[in-house]
């Protein structure tokens, strides 16, 4: 079946069997391997992508369901070569070790901050509770997201006033 998906802002097409999972379509048809497959049971969240801005587990839906829709993967986070504040935060606060859960964590963080730019620690921990990390014990992931929220707030206040 022919599908057209807007991936990280660009239209991509593929001819896929309906049973191919979105995670497979992203990795194999679109060649974007930042989305990881970590479990077989919808438990780990390493496959998380944004579907029309909303976090979904790409291993638990079919590629054909994304036909005509927008998908954001980790590769889409750095706009024009500039890191997303979340990516900077993971760097500054050592928010990763092996990096396997990281794309999913960062995309969930992106969706959280888009909706709630000033989350509490509890908000953050709640938002990432669908993503498992085997390395870090989560503390630095939380700090990385807090760093990103603070950085984004700082850039906002530093913006020059609009010239009318």
């Amino acid at each position: 079946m022919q599908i057209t998906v807007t991936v990280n802002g660009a239209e991509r097409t593929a001819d896929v069997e309906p049973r191919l999972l979105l995670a497979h379509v992203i990795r194999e048809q679109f060649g974007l391997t930042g989305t990881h497959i970590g479990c077989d049971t919808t438990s780990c969240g390493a496959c998380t992508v944004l579907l029309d801005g909303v976090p979904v587990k790409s291993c638990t839906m079919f590629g054909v369901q994304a036909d005509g829709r927008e998908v954001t993967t980790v590769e889409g986070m750095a706009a024009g070569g500039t890191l997303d504040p979340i990516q900077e935060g993971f760097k500054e606060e050592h928010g990763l070790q092996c990096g396997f859960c990281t794309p999913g964590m960062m995309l969930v963080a992106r969706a959280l901050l888009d909706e709630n730019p000033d989350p509490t620690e509890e908000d953050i921990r709640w938002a990432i509770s669908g993503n498992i990390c085997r390395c870090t014990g989560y503390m630095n992931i939380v700090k990385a997201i807090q760093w990103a929220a603070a950085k984004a707030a700082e850039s906002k206040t530093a913006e020059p006033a609009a010239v009318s």
Partner: protein
Amino acid sequence: MLPAAFEYHRASTLDEALALLSEHGSEAKVLAGGQSLVPLMKLRFAAPEHLVDINRLPGLDGLDEDGEGLRVGALVRNKALERSDLLRSRYPTMAAAAPMISDPIVRNLGTLGGSLVHADPAGDWGSVMLALGGSVVLRSSRGEREVPAREFLVDTFTTSIEPDEVLTGVRVPAPAPRSGGAYLKMERKVGDFATVAVAVQLALANGTIRRAGIALTAVGPKNIEAEAAEALLAGAEPTEEAFAEAGRLAAQAADPISDVRGSADYKRHVVEVFTRRGLARALEMAQVS
């Protein structure tokens, strides 16, 4: 694992979906959130030959009340239920259950309606609907019918839905004036199925219990309504002793298996404790509502 091959149909109208179900009947499954169905298909415990994707059907995402009570459309996602002020203020059992379903990412796609049709005994919504006396609305090209949850949930992964029917919505009776509810869930970690969960609803009249709804998750072949416990409480004074006895009766109604999540004895014990606690919580809420 990859699911077995199937034919995929994306319906753009309800009539189209119903026509597809009439044609393919028992070889077809409806796909909404897919957060229960797709995992089963990946394990090949389910291998429908046809999937009818209803996610783009208009008009199925309503969440509101009419004269009789709550109406939840088939495509209302668990995330919307988790955030609903309407549920928080008027349907506290549902408001308590919603945030405990799976994890926040799965809640972005999963639906209340889908959970009921899937009828996993460890599914949270089934117990909530039993405790609240909710019902499902089923449509086919032959017409529409409304079925109470206690008739709809027949057995493990088995409902009374016909092969050519699609669930279009769920209904819950409007809350009585002095009522409250709770949902207590024990899980090993976020996203795990319940070890044990208990749904409670209580309605008071003149200081005594007018109606009690108690239903159990993950402790039997299907969601279990603790009818003896409910009958004991109907018309009774809401005392600690009554709640303790209700807890014991609810534990007796449970039929858990011993597995990695705990022994049958342990799970029965948790049923008793959660029933008592849930009733106490519901009572507190009912007394100030």
